[in-house]
């Protein structure tokens, strides 16, 4: 019969239309600003810099090695290395970024900077409501705007942060052991020198 296929299709749309009043599964959208879907744990938007402790400037994990700057596909990262050194989380003196800018109007959220970073210093944010009226200055983030505490990172990517913490703890333990043995060695040396003196 001519028109049978059309009627069959119409029945399908009618089923979906009336079904949406009874079954929540048929509703696929939410009213965005009022209702929100929680982002997935793996979600990524733009990078940020992680810092430990309370002071953002002293706690930055970044040591300005500039690997992310080199590997970044669209080259949206700009780093200036410091002249002096400051102690990092382990206590080893390291360089720090005197300047660290990310142009998020260029960034394409590919996460390669996070993958190549050997110091777990740069991570991906999940904040996506970033509209601004200043299209140049407002989208060029400096290191102060990029710095976010480790607690924030633990909150947005708990599973990943757990692994990172385990890895950092191992590194710290290694560094501590090394420092201890160095102290012991120097103490022994001092003792030897003292013995020679006596």
């Amino acid at each position: 019969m001519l028109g049978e296929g059309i009627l069959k299709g119409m029945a399908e749309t009618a089923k979906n239309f009336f079904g949406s009043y009874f079954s929540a599964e048929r509703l696929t959208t939410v009213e965005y600003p009022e209702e929100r879907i929680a982002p997935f744990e793996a979600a990524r938007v733009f990078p940020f810099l992680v810092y430990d402790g309370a002071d953002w400037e002293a706690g930055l994990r970044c040591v300005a090695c500039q690997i992310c700057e080199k590997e970044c596909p669209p080259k949206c990262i700009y780093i200036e290395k410091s002249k002096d050194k400051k102690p990092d989380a382990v206590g080893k003196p390291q360089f720090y970024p005197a300047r660290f800018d990310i142009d998020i109007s260029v960034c394409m959220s590919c996460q390669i900077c996070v993958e190549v970073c050997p110091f777990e210093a740069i991570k991906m944010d999940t904040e996506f409501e970033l509209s601004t009226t200043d299209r140049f200055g407002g989208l060029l983030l400096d290191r102060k705007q990029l710095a976010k505490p480790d607690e924030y990172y633990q909150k947005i990517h708990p599973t990943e942060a757990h692994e990172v913490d385990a890895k950092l703890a191992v590194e710290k333990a290694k560094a501590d052991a090394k420092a201890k043995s160095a102290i012991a060695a120097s103490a022994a040396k001092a003792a030897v020198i003292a013995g020679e003196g006596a």
Partner: protein
Amino acid sequence: MSVTEELLNQRPEGWNRPAPQVPDDEGELLEIAMGPHHPSTHGVFRMDVALDGERVVRLKAVFGYLHRNHEKIAEGVSYLASMPYTDRLDYICPITNNWAYALAVEKLAGQEVPERAEYLRVILGELTRFQNHASSIGFLIQEMGASGTPLMYAFKAREKVLDLFEELTGARMMVNYMRFGGCRVDASPAWLERTRKVVAGLPGFVDEFERLLATNEILMARTQGVGILKPELAINAGVTGPMLRASGVNYDIRKVDGYGIYNRFNFRVPLGDHGDVYDRFMIRLLEMRESIGILNQALKEIPIGPVMDPKAKLRGFRPKAGEAYGRIEAPKGELGFYLISDGGPNPYRYRVRPPSLINLTVLEDMCLGHDVADVVLIFGSVDIVLGEVDR
């Protein structure tokens, strides 16, 4: 016929194009530029059409409005840094772009891929094929004039697949997931469980889509016998993918090459009979069903193990000098990456063989003699993404 027209209608030997359409003596030809901002062109693409009344006499495709210098950029950056750029070629199915590029580099470097990573690639690749075909059918029907409904049905299913992508890779579309020697992150058991649940719901969606569209009289009247592509011409022009199979040529790279682990799976290759728009529409529906079959097998068999080859290098990756061509059956056809390495950190030559562009070269042959309203439909049935056509 003027000299210019004669030149335009010249056909190379063995090209098998349809006979040139000669306008009747009354009146003049009307030349229309459809696009670059025509709503039917999926982006920025221009068709210079010469019309005799409503009949298409000549059609010239104009590419390049979305040219982004992809190949040259890739020659200037490291192998790894090109991976996120491949997402942006065919942005409807970024996973298969990643896969084709990873395959080419793995061939170049002689890199092995762990078992679990191969399974994950197949699962994600077939999910991509499913959502690409669903949305491509939706767009096709949208261009026929059914604004909204079938497209929204398709997007409802696509949304579920994209949620899976986001949960695993962190992004809905620009996934940047594959690496040379495996995949970036491992799938958790919870993700696999959710995927099984989503895949279990997909046949219901295909059934619904079929009831909604496949026997619709208006759709059949508009699409059957329209835009016929002869198998000889399809082979000569290098057309691949569902377009070629709709013309009745049995050529699927998953079967021919058996790249990855595809020779382990049991699936059929649907073939068309007439090579018209309706056949291309039906082929996509049938391929969706085959994809679900492969997904079920892969989700059942997926082993436990690493997803990255421990010997694979992320930074400082320098394959030895040589060349390689990696190709896969992307949802739109044969997607290939041709790479020449001179031993340096970035490729000496990087070339993409995009299915969309090459499938589009037969557009004029399919459109000649049809009404201008059918041009939109035939163009939609080719299933292109302009990001891949222009690169």
